């Protein structure tokens, strides 16, 4: 090393050295403790789901299973009893899938069009319309349950019966209840796009649908992902709408889980209950893990939803 560089060594030069400060240690300590705190219940559930009943009764809840078994998972999926039927959670899973896969795209397409029209194609009273729609997000849905039962049962289907207690019925309910918050989401997104883009497309001769499909839709991928996350988790986790509107044939997984946990005759089989609960929560969990940064945006956007 030359003399010149050694004299430099005393004065600050080059990249600033990274120091481990007490504040940084504190932050990491807090984060690790918080992570453990929130992971403990999940760990207990997974451990418990793999232990037989006598081990649960006899031992510590944190103890590792002596003979780990997946039997209770199989039972929860295919043969646990929900009331009189003993088919496990599987039918509920497929019902939830049907409801989610239909209601998510319908509500998103409608809300996207709403947001697009309210941002760019202003008409007399469009602000009022938007205000009413957003107001809908703050109405407690419990007060609407009875009116909706009444409305759905008054729609007669051509093949007999009414919309109440059918798959289309529950899909309609979810689609409508998703619209206020999703319209708000999409309107705010479109309002953040430069208005000149819309003007340019109009000068180029594009109309309502052409601008939507050629210009706006390709730009909306990020916000659509956020909307999908919000809707999938929201609809999957729903209990009350599924219980009330889906009908006996279409009860979603959450309702069936409740039935399994509630209808234990004799001893409460904790292992099966734990396995069933994890299975039901798996879909939103997977969505959270896979979506990563989009999920954070989803929370920020959904903060209003509470």
């Amino acid at each position, binding site marked *: 090393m030359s003399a010149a560089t050694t004299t430099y060594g005393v004065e600050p030069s080059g990249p600033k050295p990274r120091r481990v400060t007490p504040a940084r240690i504190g932050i990491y300590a807090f984060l690790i403790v918080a992570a453990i705190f929130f992971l403990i219940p999940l760990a207990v559930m997974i451990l418990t789901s793999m232990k037989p009943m006598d081990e649960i009764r006899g031992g510590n809840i944190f103890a590792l299973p002596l003979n780990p078994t997946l039997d209770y998972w199989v039972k929860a999926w295919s043969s646990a009893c929900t009331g009189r039927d003993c088919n496990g959670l599987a039918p509920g899973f497929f019902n939830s899938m049907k409801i989610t896969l239909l209601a998510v795209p319908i509500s998103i397409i409608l809300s996207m069009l709403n947001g697009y029209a309210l941002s760019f194609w202003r008409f007399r009273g469009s602000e009022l319309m938007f205000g009413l729609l957003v107001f809908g997000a703050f109405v407690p849905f419990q007060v609407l349950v009875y009116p909706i039962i009444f409305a759905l049962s008054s729609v007669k289907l051509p093949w007999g019966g009414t919309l109440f207690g059918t798959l289309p019925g529950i899909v309609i309910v979810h689609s409508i209840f998703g619209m206020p918050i999703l319209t708000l989401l999409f309107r705010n997104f479109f309002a953040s796009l*430069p208005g000149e*883009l819309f*003007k*340019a497309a109009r000068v*180029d001769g594009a109309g309502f649908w052409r601008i939507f499909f050629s210009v706006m839709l390709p730009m909306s991928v990020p916000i659509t992902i956020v909307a999908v996350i919000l809707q999938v988790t929201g609809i999957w986790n729903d209990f009350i709408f599924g219980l009330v509107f889906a009908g006996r044939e279409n009860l979603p997984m959450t309702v069936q889980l409740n039935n399994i946990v509630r209808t234990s005759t004799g001893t409460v089989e904790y292992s099966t209950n734990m396995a069933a609960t994890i299975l039901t929560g798996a879909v939103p969990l997977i969505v959270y893990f896979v979506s990563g940064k989009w999920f954070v945006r989803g929370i920020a956007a959904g903060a209003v939803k509470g």
Partner: protein
Amino acid sequence: MATSVQIKDLSLNYGAVKVLDRLNLDIADGEFIVLLGPSGCGKSTLLNCIAGLLDVSEGQIHISGKNVTWEEPKDRGIGMVFQSYALYPQMTVERNLSFGLRVAGMPKPEIESRVKRASEILQIEPLLKRKPVELSGGQRQRVAIGRALVRDVDVFLFDEPLSNLDAKLRNDLRVEIKRLHQRLKNTMIYVTHDQIEAMTLADRIAIMKNGVIQQLDNPHTIYNKPTNLFVADFIGSPSMNFLKGDLADGTFTTNGVSVPMGSYGFVGSPNGKAVLGIRPEHVQVGEDARKMPFQFESEIEIVEPMGAETVAWTTLAGQSLTLRADAEVDLQPGQKILVGFDPARGSVFNAESGNRI
């Protein structure tokens, strides 16, 4: 020359707010018109009305002899270039250029030849396969101009197209727009708040304030014979010097100092309260001042060297006066110096109405 764009008694109100007030404007075929004014003067609103992006409250707009007041933007024979470029971010340059033609359902070979011609004119052929994010600001604005070019329109509308670019690029593109106009000979309407752009590009400048055109004339007349105080103050940097005083029998008196107006071209023989405006570059110092009809001794207060020239601040009869001198003239703060100007080259305004007299 035939009229290309004609605006008749155009008004636009938002509730009680009049953005445009019974505005009339005739633009000749092939003319380059610049709408100039401070923000909020209604210049962009007027352009949006011509484009058909805003509905007018009253009046008519004719383009190429056709009344287009109620027509859709695409049916007006206009192309528009925006400040934010407004390129479609998900499309390549080529598809950006051809979007309007594809919407119109034009046959493919025709689209290709038009895109080719436009990209040749604007020298953007190597960029055709790129997305807008991969382009620099200047390239984006060129593509935006190309989008108007391919549609083969009669009238080009520019809405502050250079405001988002840095100073050097702005100068380059300004020259290119001028070259484009000389080559295409289309009618162009250009909105800006930059007076340099207005002076350099325009055949005629329309200076606007509060939705009303204050003066519509060629840049030389606008600069040298501003029609009122607003125009005089808005055009020119550093701005015109204004001296308040009284006008009587061809002599302007300000705080006891008499300035004979000499050969100034008064209409009639106006008297009363007046404002005398003198451009800083018409004020001379030192030896040059001796040749001027009006001279006075003054002290230099502040000196701002600009490189090509030096701007100095002095006073006349207790009122601040700026002057532009050659950079070679040595000026120092506190220096006593002879200052002079020719009042006939100035502008006199009525102090109450603000109009030129």
